C-alpha cells in the first residue's frame, strides 16, 4: 500500500496539492449552498420586489463554486 502510494506520488507529485484543493473546494461548495438556502429562507421571511434578484445572485454564487470544482478536477 505504502509502495503503491509512493509510486503514485513519484509519478504525479501534484496530487499532494490537488487533493487538499479539492477538499477545500468541497467545503466552499457547502458554504455557498448554505448561503443559497439561507437567502431563499430569508427571502420568504421578508419578501421584497428585489428578493428574486438577491436569490439569483446567491444561485450564481453557488454555480460558480461548482464551476471552480469542475475546473480544478479537469485542468489541475
Amino acid at each position, binding site marked *: 500500500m505504502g509502495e503503491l502510494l509512493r509510486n503514485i506520488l513519484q509519478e504525479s507529485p501534484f496530487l499532494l496539492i490537488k487533493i487538499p484543493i479539492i477538499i477545500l473546494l468541497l467545503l466552499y461548495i457547502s458554504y455557498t449552498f*448554505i*448561503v443559497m438556502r*439561507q437567502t431563499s429562507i430569508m427571502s420568504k421571511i*421578508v419578501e*421584497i420586489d428585489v428578493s428574486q434578484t*438577491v436569490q439569483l445572485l446567491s444561485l450564481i454564487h453557488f454555480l460558480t463554486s461548482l464551476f471552480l470544482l469542475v*475546473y480544478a478536477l479537469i485542468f*489541475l
Partner: protein
Amino acid sequence: MPDIFTLPDSNKTNSSPPDSPKDHPKTPSSGKTGLFNAFSFMPQNMHFDTQEPGETILLLLRRHWITNISWLFTGFLLLIIPIFIFPLFDIASLFPAFFPSSFTSFLILTWYILTASFLLTEYLIWYFNVAIVTQERIIDIDFAILYKSISETRISRVEDVTSHTGGFIRSFFDFGDVFVQTAANFENFEFLAVPHPQQVVKIINQLMGKVEEG
C-alpha cells in the same frame, strides 16, 4: 406632520390603506425598496412572514449605506490587487516544475471568485438585517449566514423610544441608533446606524400616541 396611520376600524374592511407615501413629500425614499435602500417609508410590494391581514408596513430600515464602506473598500482592494501584483512577477516561475501550467489561471480564478463571495456575503448580511415598523408591531431581524434572530413586539408594549446620533460622520450623513424600550418582561430593540433616526422616533411616537388614544 400628517397622521401616518389610522387604527383599523372594525366597521371597515381592511382594504382601505393608510395615507399614501405621496402625502409625505419630506419623507426620504418613500415606497422604494431597492437593492441598496436603507430607509423606506411605506414600502410597496413588500410582505413579511408573520404579517397579519390588513397590517400595513410603515418603515423598512437597514444600516445606513455609509456603514458598508469598509467592506466595499476591502472588496475593491481585493479586486485590483491582482491587476497590479501579477504583472510584477512571473507567477508560474514561483511554483515547482511539476505544477501544471493551468495552476496560475486557477489561482487567479479562485481569487476573484472568493472576492465576489466575500462581497456577496457582506451584502446579504446588510440586506437581511432589517427592522420593520408596522401599524401594530415592531419587528427586528438580525441575520448572519449561520444565524438569524427575529424579535417582535406590539406598539402597545413600547414604553420609550430614543435616538442617539454622535460624531461627525453620523451627523453629516444623518444616521444613528434608535432604542426602543418595552415593558419590563419584554425584549428591548436596537436599530443600529439607521438613517434619519429622529424621523423613526417621531413615527414610532406617533404610533404609540394613536394606540393610547385607541
